[in-house]
């Protein structure tokens, strides 16, 4: 077999990884923008605690995050129980759970990037829009959000790349099930555990690097184009 010929298992892992990562970004984006806006613009007691909570997955071991997710969202977990009872959704041991794990791990990166960008938006422009007759919601969607787009794009790419690489929280929360939760990192790990797995591991390793590099280059190009447009 040729070196570049991917096996079915590897193709499956690649597709699953892309699927999980894209969903993770999509799920965390609205919440991420909202959280970033709160951190950048609203003053309230306990803001440091919220800030800390959002950044927690960045500093605690991923396995701990995965275990906490299992406790909260597992079939018998505090939230997972209710979720199953009212919507029939189960998150453990399937790809949806992998999305949640990836989203939680990538969330701080997304929020950081959007927040930085939001803090760079001149609030004088927002005031000006208000005096021109726009309500707060319109100001957000016509002024604040468009001016934040470079940060949102950077945040999305960072979150996407982080999701692609997610391992610890995923394996703890949703286990390593082929075709269901076995993303590229998990497949790579599995290859290293079996005899004759080196070639497959090498291929997945290269694929990971290529995807991550492509994402970074794309984000840089898009962000640059948008910054240029925003500055006129």
């Amino acid at each position, binding site marked *: 077999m040729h070196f570049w010929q991917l096996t079915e298992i590897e193709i499956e892992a690649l597709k699953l990884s892309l699927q999980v990562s894209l969903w993770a970004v999509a799920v965390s984006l609205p919440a991420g923008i909202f959280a970033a806006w709160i951190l950048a613009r609203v003053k309230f007691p306990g803001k440091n605690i919220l800030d800390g909570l959002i950044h927690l997955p960045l500093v605690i071991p991923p396995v701990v995050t995965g275990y906490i997710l299992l406790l909260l969202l597992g079939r018998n977990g505090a939230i997972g129980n209710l979720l199953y009872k009212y919507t029939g959704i189960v998150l453990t041991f399937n790809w949806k759970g992998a999305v949640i794990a990836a989203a939680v791990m990538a969330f701080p990166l997304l929020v950081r990037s959007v927040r930085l960008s939001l803090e760079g938006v*001149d609030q*004088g*422009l927002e*005031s*000006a*829009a*208000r*005096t*021109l*007759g*726009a*309500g707060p919601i*319109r100001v957000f969607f*016509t*002024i604040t959000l*468009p*001016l934040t787009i470079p940060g949102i794009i950077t945040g999305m790419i960072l979150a996407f790349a982080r999701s692609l690489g997610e391992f610890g929280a995923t394996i703890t929360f949703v286990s390593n099930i082929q075709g269901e939760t076995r993303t590229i990192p998990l497949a790579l790990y599995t290859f290293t555990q079996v005899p004759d797995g080196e070639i497959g591991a090498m291929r997945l390793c290269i694929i990971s690097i290529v995807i991550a590099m492509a994402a970074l280059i794309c984000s840089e190009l898009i962000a640059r184009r948008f910054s240029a*447009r*925003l*500055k*006129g």
Partner: protein
Amino acid sequence: MQINIKRRQGSFLVDVGFSGSDTGVTALYGHSGAGKTSVVNMVSGLVKPDKGHISVKDLCLFDSEKGINLPIDQRRIGYVFQEGRLFPHYSVKNNLTYGLKLTPPSLRFIDFDSVIDLLGIGHLLERRPSKLSGGEKQRVAIGRALLTSPAILLMDEPLASLDAKRKAEVLPFITRLSAEFKIPILYVSHHIDEILNLADKLVIMDSGRVIASGAPEDLFSKPDLQKHISMDDHGSVISGVVDDPSNCAGLTQLKFGSLYLTVSPVNAPKGMPIRVRIAAKHVGIALKKPEDTSFHNIFKGTIRSIVDNEGAFVDVYVDIGRVLLARISRHSCNRLDLHEGKEVYAMIKTVAVSLGGSNEDRE
């Protein structure tokens, strides 16, 4: 326009009450830090007063007793900021129409094309704000505010970020729009020359309070108000009409009362009313009528009062039919034995008369 507001900002108290006419320009003048911008921000709703009342025309914008505090976007104010604040991600055209589109058609009384014509910004519509000069930006910002058909136009030092040349480029537009669109304007400035020919009414502020209000020429002849005016602006304001736009010497001759004043060339038709400012430091005093002198303007008058300044100078108020302020050294005052009621000649250099934006500005 009725404004009566109080607000404490840290240790600074803004406590201001004045009324302005429903047409024309009311200028808010004072040192930087006098609280002028705070007042404008409270009228706009960007800042909430602790208590008081604000109404424009018949619309009450704020009343602490009645619990009225209209949201910013419902106040129908046009606000021109010092830095323009154009939206960088919109073209000039979309900047101009941002507020226009949010104004219900039934409330629109300002026409897009007439604003574009007046401000001379038709050729800029497709450009991005970053591709505009400072003067163009401010003209677009004025247009954007005007196009919301506001009940009042607030202008917070709209020329402060511009150099003298750009100022001269924008000022005539502002003068014209107050007349053309019949919108009251509340205009903030700490440059007396800027508002000299713009203001119908002047409100002088200092340390968060209104010191005086009235016609510019009245306020500037009052000795007790001079201390609220920045040193360079000390002087008298005289209003007259253009008598001869270009006399035999190529200078402009103004007439006030029965007297004539020769000034730098003004591009204005005969009969146009104009205010000029004569800086106190550029007025000299003589006991006998000087002959063989370079001074074009020599007026006979009597000394009305002499005010001792700190330092080496005194302010002499000379009544020449109007009140003229001269700042001379104490030494000269003693040497000439000046006192109230004494007859003197006041001399004004032509080039020292400031025309308040009717011509190129100082600086």
